[in-house]
């Protein structure tokens, strides 16, 4: 599904290399986790994949189902099935959560040549999904992420993901700032979405999330590269020992 090959990325404005030959492949139906020290480039990877400005790919490739991601606009990547749950979801005052979500869904459908959702269908769907994530009707009506608590923002990201039903879901530290119950809700939401034709790339610092969302593969990232790949036991090792030995071994 997602294929990243020898990706080199630098900042557009500065001469600073952040990704230095990153390769990774997530087959359909699998959940992969990425762990790694602060500043290793995890968020940068997620931004480059989803098309944020300010980065320059100097070498390498990234594709979704064989389509070259790097050539597409962010909205085209979304319509092609890519979704990024942000580490820091953005507040947009004056724009209703529902209006935003409905516009996004219908724009994607239109781009794919599908029927747009009527407002009745949309409402039914969004209410059901919101209830599953314990998102109140009042939060749905409020402006996008405005006045939401940290945990509420993260749940709102998962609501968007559930509504947009992407095939490739990237989650950047969705578990940070969540209380124990909210983490379970989010994990349940993600598990409900697991399907043979849908994949996940879960960026996290904590093994705990991976108890709820069982990964098939765990990658360790450091200094802009994947330095080690293994099974769920790798996450347990990080939790217990930290990155020291792992990085020394790889380096």
């Amino acid at each position, binding site marked *: 599904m997602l294929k990243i090959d020898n990706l080199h990325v630098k900042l557009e404005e500065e001469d600073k290399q952040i990704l230095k030959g990153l390769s990774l492949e997530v087959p359909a139906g699998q959940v992969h986790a990425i762990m790694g020290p602060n500043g290793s480039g995890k968020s940068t990877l997620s931004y480059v994949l*989803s*098309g*944020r*400005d*300010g980065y320059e790919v100097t070498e390498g490739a990234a594709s979704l189902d064989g389509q070259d991601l790097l050539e597409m*606009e*962010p*909205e085209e*990547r*979304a*319509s092609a099935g890519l*979704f*990024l749950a*942000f580490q820091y*979801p*953005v507040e*947009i*005052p*004056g*724009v209703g959560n529902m209006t*935003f*979500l409905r*516009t*996004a*869904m219908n*724009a*994607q459908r239109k*781009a794919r040549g599908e029927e747009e959702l009527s407002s009745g269908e949309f409402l039914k769907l969004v209410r059901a999904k919101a209830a599953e994530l314990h998102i109140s009707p009042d939060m749905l009506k409020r*402006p996008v992420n405005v006045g939401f608590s940290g945990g509420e923002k993260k749940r709102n990201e998962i609501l*968007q993901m559930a509504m*947009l039903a992407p095939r490739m879901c990237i989650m950047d530290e969705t578990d940070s700032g969540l209380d124990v119950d909210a983490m379970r809700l989010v994990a349940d939401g993600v598990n409900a979405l697991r399907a043979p034709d849908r994949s996940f790339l879960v960026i996290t610092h904590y093994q705990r999330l991976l108890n709820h969302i069982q990964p098939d593969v765990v990658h360790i990232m450091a200094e802009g590269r994947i330095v080690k790949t293994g099974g769920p036991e790798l996450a347990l090792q990080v939790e217990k020992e930290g990155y020291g030995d792992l990085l020394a071994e790889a380096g």
Partner: protein
Amino acid sequence: MSDIAVKTKDVTPQVSGAARAPDALEARLEALSLPRGGFTAAARRDALSRLRDMGLPGPRDEYWRYTDPRPFNAPLPQPVPLVTDAGPALFDDLDRLKLVFVDGVFDAAASDDAELEGVQIETLAAVDEATGDHWAASLYGVLETAGQVPVRRPFAALNTAAARDGVLIRVTGRPSKPVHVIHRRASADADALWHHVVRVEEGAELTLLETGMSGARSNGVIEVDLAKGARLHHITAKRAADQKLGLSHLFARVAAEAQLKSFALSVNGRLMRQEGVIDIAGDDAVAHIAAAVLGDGDEGPFHQDDTVFITHGAERCESRQVFKKVLKNGAEGVFQGKILVKQGAQKTDGYQISQALLLDERSQFLAKPELEIYADDVKCSHGSTTGALDETALFYLRSRGVPKARAIVFLVLSFLADALEEVEDEGLRERIHERLEAWLTDRAQG
């Protein structure tokens, strides 16, 4: 944003009119036919002599530093072609009492009967000649005259002297629906001057809507007198199809416990200046003045100027100025806003914000916020910002599949939200929001 809790002082530069060429003013007056007036006759004569004293604004006039007065000084306006297919107007499907003015002159045939419980509606031209004595005589030109200090506003005096028509509204109750003044154009070169007088009696309340523009050039004055506990919601909207040259003045006197809420929406245009002069004269009164402006220089030069002067002369009063401008393709926005807190106006709560969203580097926003405070127990703050689109928010929206142009529409609406919030009636606010969204989306799809 700076918060200033105690005394600050500054000086508004004064400009004398003596240096101006009287010929230019005489040529300007020559091109107008000055009505003699009935109950307004004395006010008109007085305005004319005040105007001759002050002259027209010149290039060195401090108050006209950011906006070129010459198109308003010219004896005749440049003709502006009529727009035939303007599409539906903003409040077309609303239950309201409709008053139509064509190039500044009342059109009875196109208007509703002026029958509405709790409000007495007349038109200036209809009653001016006939009536020797009228309630509006104590206001016509009176609030305008009071608003000439400390800053001269020659075009307002010109208006008092030369206005041909307007609406005279006296509110005694709480009418069941808004009064809607609609301005239309019928000639490509009309120089339209209208002058409204609104008096809201004690405890009474009115929503006054005003849409469209008139003439190839327009000069409008509205004098508003709010008695104790009275309320006026004034909402004006000018849209792209009305595009032209316009100047307007709002003069308001707000008595104790009264509330004035004024909101103006301007969508494109060429050269526009709106002045608001508000005198908060009684304790516990509230005055809000807000505007949302969208300017696109693509269809010709765009310059829009909001100039506001709020005087706090009583205790525990609140004023808010919220001005938001979205500018692109070389559009220019101006904001000059002042809060004057007089001695003794304790517990004043004054707030002022002016912000511009520049969609490109060619556009510009000039702001001159001022505070002048002579009372020691007040809370006043003012702030002004100029910024570009928030790239992070833009990316967030696009990452969900929203096309770039549509995402920009969302961010523009987001930027304007604080100004729209000033429209108190939720139904009207949503209507304005929807119309704005539809208009922006339509254009975004090009």
